């Protein structure tokens, strides 16, 4: 019996993404996690375990979808191992020895509070990287906003209705974190250094090698997906 629900809203994009919400997590970890992932899972606190499992479930569905579409092969969740460096940069390994010739896709995962997780994959054959960030629309501390937005973004924010401030701040954050994840540095690089205003005003691309971005707003959740082509 499948014990996790997944609306799987796959979009017709150059990337694929999946969303997961998991209940009864302990009982399904052997179905989803590789042995090494399970070892990591057991070191985490209970709330972190849920985040970890949701993120991996979403990512493994996205990877499986990509591999099915690209190579017509089926990969079970526990055969797809996704490990992170200390700052969250992810690498994917397919442990099924029959599929060693397949180059796994690049993957990015995001989760937010208790609302589930999303993940996106990008085709490594087109030399691309992906960054995904999902946040619940929230109130930011004014001093935090002043730190992560640059001068032009702050000016844009002041021109919006006050009632929309939380939406715009959250959108800015998801775009910036998506870009930083696609660049592989995460918050090691200051978010202020990433100019995402052009994404919103659609004048041009924020970075010369950024090839696409998509934002999905559903209820009080904002999901931003950034695709970067490597030069």
């Amino acid at each position, binding site marked *: 019996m499948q014990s996790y629900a997944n609306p799987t809203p796959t979009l017709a994009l150059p990337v694929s993404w999946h969303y997961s919400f998991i209940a009864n997590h302990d009982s399904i970890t052997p179905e989803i996690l590789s042995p090494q992932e399970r070892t990591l899972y057991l070191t985490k606190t209970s709330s*972190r375990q849920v985040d970890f499992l949701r993120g991996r479930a979403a990512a493994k569905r996205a990877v499986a979808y990509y591999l099915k579409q690209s190579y017509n092969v089926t990969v079970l969740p526990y055969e797809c191992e996704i490990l992170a460096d200390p*700052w969250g940069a992810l690498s994917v390994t397919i442990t099924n020895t029959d599929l060693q010739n397949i180059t796994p896709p690049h993957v990015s995962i995001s989760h937010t*509070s208790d609302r589930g997780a999303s993940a996106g994959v990008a085709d490594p054959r087109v030399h691309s990287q992906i960054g995904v960030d999902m946040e619940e629309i929230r109130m930011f501390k004014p001093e935090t906003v002043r730190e992560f937005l640059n001068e032009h973004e702050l000016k844009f924010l002041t021109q919006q209705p006050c009632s929309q401030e939380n939406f715009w701040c959250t959108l800015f954050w998801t775009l910036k974190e998506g870009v930083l994840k696609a660049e592989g540095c995460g*918050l090691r*690089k*200051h978010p202020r250094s990433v100019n995402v205003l052009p994404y919103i005003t659609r004048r041009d691309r924020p970075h010369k090698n950024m090839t696409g971005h998509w934002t999905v707003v559903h209820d009080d959740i904002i999901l931003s997906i950034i695709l970067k082509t490597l030069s």
Partner: protein
Amino acid sequence: MITDSRADISVEVRTIIANTLGVPVENIQESSAITELSQDSIQLFELLLAFERAYTTEVSYEDVAKLNTVNDIIAYVHSVRSIH
């Protein structure tokens, strides 16, 4: 008063984390990864800013953002103060 003692720096660093994240200082272990202590990326960013503000002349955002654990931050601040 600025102190060079590693033990005092440990208290300073753990107090900054506790105040920023709203958790008891005794719950913060030196071996903890700072990405694990924060609830989400926004809180992690606020923690990095808190270190930058607390150690204005010693630590930049990028300095502390490349460190992984509480112990790494303590050691970094200690080494910077030793040089000065």
